[in-house]
């Protein structure tokens, strides 16, 4: 007996007309294009800031260097792949790995190549200006010029990478139609940004362990400043808190600020809006368990204090955010991008059977 011939179940039929619909594949590409660009910018900022920081600590020994770079490596890339390629973690190897290694899928070059490849898949959907920006960036990275710029002045190089991202995001705002695709671009951007802010903050979580709350010195102060700069938040922080850079205040600012656009909460508020625009649900209705978990976390944050978070463990809290965002990412994929695959052989049989004329 052969299996009964039932075509793979598909999603329901919609009566939407052309101008309103978005292919699932396109949604997926827009989302990842946007995530990759945001990711490249964050990696560039992180490396730039930390390379500059190292200038102040030129006397670090190997162990200290490793201690400094390892968390960065963990936050931005794959430790295992790294040690397959390099012997020790120092300024040079880590920045090289996170910038140019095509074996590292999260290096700047891999992110931007992937962003551009996704953009190429949806060239008809994005504006010419957006594509040109990404393509220019791609051509720059492909040229030997890129490495030369990096070697003669890493700062200039990372500036350039950040500029491409800023230009792209600005152009998205000024040239991209506000349709469903815009929501996917935003989802990708804010999800990545929130995730990266958790990781930047997580770099120094051990300093905020309750037992060692008052530990700190010149090194730590500089490093907390570096954390703020890694999130483009130093100036914003200073305007908000006209006082010294206090670890607790930094964490509070990067988690809770509703006005600073890279704080976890601000990103989540954006995500919340975009999710509702996509689903068409009322503000406090959520579509799936993943959306509900996300909504609950956002709502909890309205009533939480930094003290509570620190008492329960900053690291644990950041992990909770990361997991919630991961599950949300999966929900977005399942809900909007995934269609059950077609079993070609079964389809062929079915259609051939249907096509036989009976007299």
């Amino acid at each position, binding site marked *: 007996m052969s299996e009964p011939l039932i075509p793979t179940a598909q999603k*329901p039929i919609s009566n*939407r007309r*052309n101008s309103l619909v978005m292919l699932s594949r396109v949604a997926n590409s827009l989302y990842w294009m946007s995530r990759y660009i945001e990711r490249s910018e964050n990696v560039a900022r992180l490396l730039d800031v930390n390379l500059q920081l190292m200038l102040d600590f030129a006397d670090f020994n190997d162990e200290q260097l490793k201690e400094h770079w390892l968390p960065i490596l963990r936050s931005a890339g794959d430790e295992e792949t790294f040690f397959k390629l390099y012997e020790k973690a120092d300024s040079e190897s880590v920045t090289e790995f996170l910038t140019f290694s095509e074996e590292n899928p999260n290096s700047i070059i891999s992110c931007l190549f992937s962003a551009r490849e996704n953009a190429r898949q949806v060239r008809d959907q994005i504006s010419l200006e957006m594509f040109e920006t990404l*393509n220019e960036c791609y*051509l720059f990275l492909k040229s030997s010029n890129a490495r030369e710029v990096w070697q003669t002045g890493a700062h200039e190089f990372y500036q350039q990478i950040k500029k491409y991202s800023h230009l792209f995001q600005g152009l998205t705002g000024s040239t991209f139609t506000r349709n469903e695709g815009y929501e996917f671009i935003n989802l990708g951007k804010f999800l990545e940004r929130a995730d990266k802010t958790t990781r930047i903050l997580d770099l120094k979580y051990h300093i905020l362990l309750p037992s060692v709350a008052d530990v700190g010195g010149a090194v730590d102060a500089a490093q907390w400043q570096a954390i703020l700069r890694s999130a483009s938040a130093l100036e914003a922080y200073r305007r908000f808190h006209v006082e010294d850079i206090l670890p607790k205040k930094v964490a509070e600012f990067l988690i809770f600020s509703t006005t600073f656009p890279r704080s976890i909460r601000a990103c989540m508020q954006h995500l919340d809006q975009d999710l509702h625009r996509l689903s068409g649900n009322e503000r406090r209705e959520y579509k799936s368990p993943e959306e509900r978990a996300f909504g609950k976390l956002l709502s909890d944050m309205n009533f939480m204090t930094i003290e509570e978070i620190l008492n329960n463990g900053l690291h644990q809290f950041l992990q909770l955010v990361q997991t919630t965002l991961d599950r949300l990412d999966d929900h977005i994929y399942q809900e909007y991008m995934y269609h059950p695959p077609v079993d070609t052989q079964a389809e062929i049989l079915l*259609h051939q059977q249907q*096509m036989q004329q009976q007299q």
Partner: protein
Amino acid sequence: MLLNNYQSEDFFDEMFMDDGRTVRPHYQRVADRFQLLDTAEHRRKQTAVDLAFMRSGVTFTVYNDDQGTERIFPFDLVPRVIPDTEWQRIEKGLIQRITALNLFLHDIYHDQKILKDRVIPPHYILGAKHFRREFMGFNVPKDIYVHICGTDLIRDRQGNYLVLEDNLRCPSGASYMLENRAALKRAFPDLYRSARVQPVDNYSAELRKVLQYVSTPSLGGAQPNVVLMTPGVFNSAYFEHAFLARQMGIPIVEGRDLVVRDARVYMRTTSGLVPVDVIYRRIDDDFLDPTVFRSDSLLGVPGLVHAYRSGNVSLANSIGTGVADDKVVYYFVPKIIKYYLGEDPILPNVDTYLASEPEDRVFILDNLEKLVVKSANEAGGYGMLMGPWASKEEIESFREQVRANPRNFIAQHPISLSRHPTWCNSDLGGGFEGRHVDLRPYILYGEKITVTPGGLTRVALRKGSLVVNSSQGGGSKDTWVLHGDS
């Protein structure tokens, strides 16, 4: 000064008369402007144009290169100019030809009168590679088979326009016609304005109208859902697919984005399955549907042909048009025009010999070293013998092939092709030299037939070469049809 040393030699030159000095009246403005250029300014303009193409991704992918290299299609700055009167004749000729070919396709998929009347020996059609027996008696929407056609024209030593090839399946290059125009306007705005050139920008809008026009009637007045179907991002013409889809504001889909349920085509969207009414497909018949044609095709959609036959979706171009651009059928096109329209062809064919006709075959085999031999169903300049330039081995190899499978070959006397001043780099910086060109105008068949004024002029950049295909060292030029004759 750059044109002073130009040699037109013993060819028909588009810009210069036979004395090699006098500029044809319709080229006067262009010649004057290019005389003013010096090498440095030329280089500046060329670099700017090339960079713009590279930046906006107007490229094609080079195969057999694991770097996935993308190259720009080389673009020459000197425009090819056609006076209005000359163009009107070309336009008439193209409309006549596509009208006749469309009637021919309808006939051979229905009553086959032309075969019964012995105008064409039936075995040529029934045995043609692209003849789709399965579609006998099938009525295509609005009786239009060929919605988009790109006909290759060349000019002989006297400057007569001849048809070299009809491309009735998935002709490409229209995006280059549009991009070339945009590039030249940026490079020479003043010249362009003063020359009074007929615009080409309407192409995309006209194409969209054609696609909407052929949608199946069951929609009750609603706008049809039109999509462009591409083989995917790694196809060499992907840029063009994305470009045209963007210009028309329609989704670009791959086979995996579509699914057929109850003989209806749907696309897989973020809001579920959405019906598709018209598909502008840039995929060959063979790959459209693995249940009917090639079962190993991963590009197609299972059940697509069933939906098409049920009248629930329109395809442009229709299935089975390839039989009319078979090079053996090409031989019969003048007779086809006479048979259906009772007219003489306005644009003649190149004289052609059929290897399957005994007399012709003897002639071909005796004169291989003087002739151009072509396979009946190849494109892109492949499967071709250029007798006068071929090696002994190549000639012998073709002799074998022609003997073994005469139905698959035709032969023509080499046409020298007109030449056009074209920038050629050299050790001394470069200058203008004559290079051979052809012309591919684009014809759209919907409620009415429209021919975009101009088209794609392709140029063989290698000295002496007659092969203009982009895959084999060809470049392109902007093509200007003037509002008047000078």
